[in-house]
């Protein structure tokens, strides 16, 4: 199974990335996982360009494909101004609306103080619910003080177990999603045309003749 870790920390080294790595390692102990890490920081310029030019650069496109194809995601953001960072949100703003439908997602965040811990519930969970991802019940918030205190390890283990459980259970049942090289879904033109034709007298129940392509 493919696990993609999206880490939106800005500094190097970053406590956000540290949390991401600990979550991924915990998940990896519970299930055989092929893990890929997307460092959003490295995509910052391509993300900005994608907003202005309308298409993703090569590295961003590769990250989008990895996230779309993943069987599970771990997403970790620093808390900025009482929410996820703008860069974190921008990465997900540029994803196809259906890209995460049905994908189990473990949400996590880091911050300077525990007073922001509910950011997982009031910012990250609604975002991934909108994207129709399956957000695991336990989110992991790590304030500065948590790194030296008891409790973080337990939350990491519990969240990782919930994630791998969902990944194992949902992988088989999840609907296929379009890959980057798949074709378009085509509605035959005659159906589209017929859907607009108003029913005429006497035809309200029998429908209209199916249009045929013209030849010149």
């Amino acid at each position, binding site marked *: 199974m493919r696990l993609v870790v999206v880490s939106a920390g800005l500094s190097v080294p970053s406590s956000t990335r540290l949390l991401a790595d600990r979550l991924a390692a915990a998940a990896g102990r519970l299930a055989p996982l092929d893990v890929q890490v997307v460092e959003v920081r490295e995509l910052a310029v391509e993300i900005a360009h994608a907003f202005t030019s309308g298409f993703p650069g090569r590295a961003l496109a590769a990250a989008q494909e990895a996230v779309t194809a993943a069987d599970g995601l771990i997403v970790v953001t620093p808390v900025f101004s009482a929410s996820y960072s703008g860069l974190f949100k921008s990465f997900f703003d540029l994803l196809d609306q259906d890209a995460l439908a049905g994908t189990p997602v473990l949400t996590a965040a880091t911050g300077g103080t525990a007073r922001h811990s509910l950011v997982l519930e009031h910012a990250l969970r609604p975002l991934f619910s909108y994207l129709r991802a399956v957000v695991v019940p336990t989110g992991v918030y790590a304030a500065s003080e948590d790194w030296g205190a008891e409790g973080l390890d337990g939350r990491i283990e519990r969240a990782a177990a919930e994630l791998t459980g969902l990944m194992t259970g949902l992988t088989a049942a999840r609907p296929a999603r379009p890959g980057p090289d798949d074709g378009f879904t085509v509605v035959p033109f005659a159906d589209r*045309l017929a859907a607009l034709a108003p029913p005429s007298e006497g035809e309200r129940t029998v429908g209209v003749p199916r249009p045929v392509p013209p030849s*010149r």
Partner: protein
Amino acid sequence: MQFGIFSVGDVTPDPTTGRTPTERERIKAMVAIALKAEEVGLDVFATGEHHNPPFVPSSPTTMLGYIAARTEKLVLSTSTTLITTNDPVKIAEDFAMLQHLADGRVDLMMGRGNTGPVYPWFGKDIRQGINLAVENYALLHRLWREDVVDWEGKFRTPLQGFTSTPRPLDDVPPFVWHGSIRSPEIAEQAAFYGDGFFHNNIFWPADHTKRMIELYRDRYAHYGHGTPEQAVVGLGGQVFMRRSSQEAVREFRPYFDNAPVYGHGPSLEDFTDQTPLTVGSPQQVIEKTLAFRDYAGDYQRQLFLMDHAGLPLKTVLEQLDLLGDEVVPVLRKEFAADRPADVPDAPTHASLLAARERGADGAAGRGAGKETVA
């Protein structure tokens, strides 16, 4: 194969001088560019249609009629005609009138327009964009082919015994292209009717353009108009040329960096790497344009955007000299070299008329010979 230019018709300040042309100057510049296109041996001039500032061409057939009177060979077209917000009855009338005045040197490209606020100004809703394009074009198609039309639809008052006048020249409707960047529904529409499909690829990576054109070609064959290779494809391109690529980059960079569409975004280098924009020597333009065929197949119409990013008219006219003298003659030769004999040229009034007189029942323009323009 046809080569030409298309203009958006934007009024954009020249970033090197800070000067913004007046609307009159911009409109006259578009005409001068069209006349220059004929002078340097190009085949097509296409104007955009917009109904909001900073754009001037709200009345395309007025402009094209004026250009028609001052040219002899140039095919007059649009990029695009808004099939969503215009009344299809008025499109049928305006372009039939233009056909008569221009002796058949007319085709047009349907497009939806992408600006939400414009739709309500014409009593429409952008969320119905695809449905408007489908219904309005179905009516337009009939108005040009049936002398008397009874019609009822969702978006317009019904017609009873309506005849659109004047009738198309020689009873041959203008050839229609359908332009779309992202909507497979429009590629499907073009394929259904056996019309042309124009992908304005200028801001898009090649793999996206390839997928849209493959869809159109497959569906064109599905509807029995010919083989996928015989489908009628048009592409855009945008270039800035000087003798050397260093000169071109140095002169164009301030325009690129401040352009309304892509300015303040990717670097010139990234953008030229990932999209059809070419800033360099005529030889570089030739190489990049020839490579379009690698992913689009043999195609019928290549339009270049030359009056972009606030370039002054004098510079644009110099660009057209280079395009007509050095680039297009090579492209004509190279594109013709490996072209299979059964890939048709873009239909023209003459080829459509000839096809009808022969009683040809297949796709228009097929077997109409290799003449580029009537």
